[in-house]
Every structure is written in C-alpha cells, then in structure tokens.
C-alpha cells in the first residue's frame, strides 16, 4: 500500500509589482494506491499547482509532502526514484510526444533510463506496454506521433507513464483535448489499469460528470483552498459548499433539464 500525503501545503508565487499570490492555502489530502481521487475546480483554483508540487516541478512554500511517511526528496537519485513511483500524464498528447521519435523510442527510453528491465528485454516490454494500453504493437511500434490519432497518442503517453511501473499516477486533464467519442475509452482504460495494477490515481479535471463516474473521492478546490471533499456521489449529488453547488449547477445536465417538462424522472430530485 502506497500512501502519498499532502500535509498543510501552502504555495506562494511572487508576482512582480503585485506582491505575493497565494496559490495553495493549507491544503492537505492523502492519495492511496487502489483509489482514484478527482481534483476539481475552475481555472486558477490551484489544481495544476498541486500537480506540479506532486511531481516536484515546484516546491511547496510551507507544509510537507510525504511518501510512505517520508518527506519526498528535492533532488538527486532520491528524487529520481520518487518520480519513478509517481508519474504524470499530461493534458495534450499532441505536445507531450516528440514528433521526431518513433513510439518504440518513446517507450524504450524510460525503460532504459530507469533500468526497469535488462536491455535485451526492452523490445518485449515495449510491446507489452502497448498491449496494456490496448494498442496493437505491430501496427504502432514503428510509427511516429503524427501518424496516430489523438486517442492513440494519449494511450502512448499513458503507456510511457506506466513504463517505470509507478504506484501513483497524476493525470492532469487527460482527456480534455480528445474528441468526445473517444474520451470514455481512455478513461475506461485508466480505470482498468488502475484496477489491474492497484494504482493510485489523482484525476485532475474541470468536468464534474466524469469526475463523478471515474473516481472514488472528489476534492473541490477554490482559490487554493479545499472547500469540499467526500465520496464522488455525495459531492455531486448532495454538495455542501456553495461553490460546489455553483459548479454543479453551471455544468450542462440535460437529464435535469428535460426531467421537468416531460415528467420522466430519469434523475433524482435535487437533494438540497
């Protein structure tokens, strides 16, 4: 069981001429293997700052980030080992893959750098990774990113994140750049992988509907403060904080929209 703890983390950015900007204010949460937690909030709420601190692209101003009870290292081999265990999937599969390299290169490189498998097994491991993300190895391994669709590219990016056999995955808006009809496929894949490997997943998104369906817990961030957290259904169906309610009510919800005039009670009535 891997446990990543965010303990009272505060992050200030210096803005020239405007003093300090408080991006995160005393944020605490735990990420556990086998669990998916969604982090929702509008732009500027601090979602990505959390991702940056988790991957140590930024350092917290105060507070602690602990992996299995130990502070995470800021540099050197320790940081590298940490990053093997906690991996990131980025939003834009068009920008996060190198157009000059084949898919084989994208997956073989982390395997070689992190000494995941002996050199002579790298090719087999690359194929196994592609199979895990439901891509056909023969059809994909020699391609370059531009020859693949957006969904296929994001699958490659996920395979790359899985290469170092991480225990936790940080997915920052992993499907928002993809076409709608393939989004669920990628989210289902993440859910399957999470079960197969008992991964802990932090799903960062502004889409409340997928947050609800693909997470165990939801945490709502507003101006750097966690305003609400709880089980996915509770937070969406019975929000306690007015900001969560505002977000929920602003999200398109045709079920509710059409429930009234037709009398088809396909949704439960508003719990509040």
């Amino acid at each position: 069981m891997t446990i990543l703890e965010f303990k009272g983390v505060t992050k200030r950015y210096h803005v020239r001429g405007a003093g300090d900007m408080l991006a995160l204010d005393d944020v605490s949460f735990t990420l556990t293997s086998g669990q998916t937690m969604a982090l929702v909030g509008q732009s500027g709420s601090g979602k990505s700052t959390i991702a940056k601190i988790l991957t140590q692209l930024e350092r917290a101003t105060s507070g602690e980030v602990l992996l299995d009870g130990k502070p995470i290292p800021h540099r050197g081999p320790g940081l590298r080992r940490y990053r093997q265990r906690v991996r990131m999937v980025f939003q834009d599969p068009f920008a996060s893959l190198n157009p000059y390299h084949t898919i084989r290169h994208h997956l073989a490189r982390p395997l070689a750098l992190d000494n995941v498998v002996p050199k002579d097994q790298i090719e087999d491991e690359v194929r196994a990774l592609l199979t895990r993300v439901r891509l056909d190895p023969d059809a994909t391994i020699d391609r370059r990113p531009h020859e693949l669709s957006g969904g296929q590219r994001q699958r490659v990016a996920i395979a790359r994140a899985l290469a170092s056999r991480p225990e936790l995955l940080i997915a920052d808006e992993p499907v928002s750049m993809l076409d709608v009809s393939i989004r669920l496929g990628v989210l289902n894949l993440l859910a399957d992988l999470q079960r197969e490997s008992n991964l802990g997943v932090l799903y960062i998104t502004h889409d409340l509907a997928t947050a609800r369906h693909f997470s165990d817990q939801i945490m709502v961030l507003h101006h750097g403060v966690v305003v609400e957290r709880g089980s996915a259904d509770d937070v969406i169906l019975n929000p306690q904080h007015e900001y969560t309610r505002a977000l929920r009510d602003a999200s398109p919800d045709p079920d509710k929209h059409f429930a009234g005039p037709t009398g088809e009670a396909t949704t439960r009535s508003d719990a509040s």
Partner: protein
Amino acid sequence: MTPDPLLTIERFSVVYDVDPPVEAVRDVSLTLARGEILGLAGESGCGKTTLAYGIQRLLKPPAVITSGTAVFHDAGGDDIEINALDEEQMRAFRWDKVSMVFQGAMNALNPVLAIGRQLDDVFTTHRPRMTKAERREECARLLDVVGVGRDRLRSYPHELSGGMRQRVMIAMAMALRPQLMIMDEPTTALDVLVQREILEQISELRHELGFSVIFITHDLPLLLEISDRIAVMKDGRLVEIDTAHRIYSDPQHAYTKRLLGSFPSLTGDRGDFVRGAGDAGHAAGADAAHPATASAATEEDAS
C-alpha cells in the same frame, strides 16, 4: 415547423481540392427559423465549421463550394442568394446581416488597441453616417448589454479576463444587430461558471433582440440545454436534425446515440459508467444506450 425561415440551405457541398479531394460537407440541406437557436453538433473533422464558413463564403482555397445554395430571407422581405453576391455586396452583407463569433475569438482582439476603439471600427466601416458621439454611445451601450460595463471602453484586451474578452467579441458580433449570429465553440475555452453566464446572456439577448443563432460545438449536453433544434453531423453529412428534446429522448441515428452515450450523466444514474463494472461497462458503452434511460436503481438509497 419553420413558419418564418431565415436561412435556407439546400444541397450544400464543399470539397477541399487536395490530393485526394476531401468531401468536407456533403449535400447538406436545412432551414433555420427566425429567432431559432440551432445547435450544430459533431466531432473534429465532421465539417461543421466548414459548413458555417461556407454559408458566409468565408472559405479559402483549396476549399471549393461544389454545389448547393444558401438563401438568406432578409427581414426587409428580400431573399438574398449568398452565392450570387459580388465582392462588395458580400462585404456589406457580412456582419450586417450575419455575424460570427469565432473559436478562440477572445484571442482575436488586437492587443495594442483599447476595446472601445475596436468596437468603434465596426461602426466606422459599416455605418459611416454615424457621428463620433453616436458611435461612442453605441459602443458603451454594447458593453453594458454583454455585462462588461461601459467603464471598460478604454481597457486593453490584456486587462480583461478570458470571459470578458469573449463577451467583447459577442458585443462586436451584435453591434450591427444582425439577424443571424454564428458561434463556433464560443465557450469551449472558458470555465463552466463563466460559460453558464455567457450562455444565459446569449439566450436572454436572443429573446430581446430576436436574432437566430447557429451554435457549433462538440459539447452535446450543452447544446441539449440551449438549443431549440440540434443538427448532428458526421463525415460531412447531416445525419439527424430534430428538436433538442427529441434528440435527447428519442435519437434515431446510431451516431447520435453514440455521441449521447459519450457523455456520462452528471446527476443521473451511473448506468454504463459504474466503476468496477469492467468489461460489462465497455460492452454497454458500445451499444451506446444513453445512461439516463436506464433504471435509476442506484439513486434511491441516496435520497
């Protein structure tokens, strides 16, 4: 069903004349009623933007309109065949009768001019008889109408948030009181809260001013809420067009069903998307039954 048509598109086709040629819009016919909000749904590459550009003759080579007509039924009683207008007539027609809010429009403002100046340009070009004072008052009024406020006339784009910049673009599109506004993903880059405000504003203004809207987006749940009718496009073809309610409750085409099935319901039943359902969930997803139509068994204990 459309007692007072504003725009009649008949057998419209657009081909991108590259090798091999791409049929971006194939034989699309539809009629837009006056005051109607028509949602145009479909995924990237389905031809929805090409169609919207095509009916305003905004397409550039290699795009070629290979067949079809778009007739605009002017409020004054004239029928204007858009393809028959010459360059000068077209220039006068655009923005005056039909305006457009482009995708990512908020980044289309000129960064070195105050927004008041940019609004003023519209009137200087299209309403040369207006005096400076009239133009100024009209610009100020427009900013009030879209909720930005006249005190921002002298603001530069970088001093406004994304949502405010998008409102300025909507103000600009409304400046000449067009009868039709075409909006191409106008709120996709914005937060849900800002998006909701802008949508409500568009809806209110539509009631006040009576213009029609063609609203283009891939976000079907959004369209279901704001549109009177929805047209679904795939591979350049119009596969289905019906009222929002019928598209929601009784979609006919398999692709419409699939699109609807791509959006998990926010507050409805977990349906096909229950975590842990594993392979069953995938199979059901392929069948594209809309999650909300399944029984709401999981909801009862929650209430």
